[in-house]
């Protein structure tokens, strides 16, 4: 049984016709994955490194399917070049679902630098992102964000903060 917030994230993706997913799991996005794995209409590919998911989902979009990449913000660092030189350059949309470690309530010092860099990295790539602090905010903004991504034909990101997910307790 996934957490309530996680079901809302999964539903935002599915009701926007996203059925192909790639992931390197982390503790937080695994709650969303539970819903997607249980859905026979969804295909979830576990990749070895987040950048691979960017390539895979870009191929899927070129073949007519919308895709989302679920990962921790550390994984965003692993796929910056692919997002820039493939998705932004060639206007290939992808939805990034990023659990936000290294911010409010973080217990692990190693998570903090990428946690603080997450927003600036997305901004530097010109990727529009939201960071909903509650299920109500997610519901108010999620559909619009995904729609904007396909209107612009560019990546967008849903960053999942500890205020929404409960974070990870150290």
């Amino acid at each position, binding site marked *: 049984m996934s957490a309530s917030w996680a079901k809302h994230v999964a539903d935002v993706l599915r009701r926007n016709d996203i059925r192909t997913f790639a992931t390197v799991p982390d503790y937080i996005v695994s709650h969303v994955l539970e819903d997607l794995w249980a859905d026979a209409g969804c295909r979830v*590919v576990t*990749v070895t490194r987040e950048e691979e998911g960017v390539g895979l989902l870009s191929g899927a979009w070129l073949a007519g399917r919308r895709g989302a990449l679920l990962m921790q913000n550390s994984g965003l660092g692993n796929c910056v070049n692919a997002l820039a030189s493939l998705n932004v350059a060639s206007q290939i949309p992808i939805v990034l679902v990023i659990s936000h470690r290294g911010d409010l309530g973080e217990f692990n010092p190693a998570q903090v630098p990428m946690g603080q860099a997450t927003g600036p990295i997305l901004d530097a790539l010109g990727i529009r992102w939201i960071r909903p602090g509650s299920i109500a905010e997610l519901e108010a903004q999620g559909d619009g964000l995904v729609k904007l991504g396909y209107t612009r034909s560019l990546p967008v990101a849903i960053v999942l903060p500890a205020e929404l997910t409960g974070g990870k307790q150290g």
Partner: protein
Amino acid sequence: MSAALTRAAATRLLAGRLSGEVVVANLGQASLDLQAIADRPLNCYTYGAMGQCSSIALGVALARPDLRVVALDGDGSLLMNLGSLCTVATEAPPNYALVVWDNEVHQTTGGQPTATAARSSLAAVARGAGIEKALEVRTEDELRRAYDRMLGEDGPFVVCVKVEKGRSEGRFTDRDVVGQARRFRQALAAR
């Protein structure tokens, strides 16, 4: 012993056998040769994201199981994304074939040796990743037989083609990356 293969000759040999297959070509030499020798809407040229050719092709293959997908990668690029071989093995799409032009150097950047110039075998890595149909070919006869298999049998295939060093004689005349991605997407949608 027949003469060593060139990437252009191997590309030409493949192009002569293509009909409805999708081809995803790696940035640099693989795309230059393919565009010069056999440009077609079902070709996807990659210009950035070094290492991602095998993964982009996997995404196409999973989304379109009704089409055969051939990726044309390079040794330097595949070495950046060896994990994709494990993902291909796990997902095991029967319509997927990864051809690696292995000239044992980073050609585009001036010919610096890669790990395949020393001790590494990409076909052996692919087998270790779990792809049973992983071949290494060095002659035109072997290449013809490999093409017959990868275009006729269920995959996934990895065909590592040992080719001579050398830059493509092709030159990109069109770097409209947005337009080319759109052309490829529309060609796929029409099939």
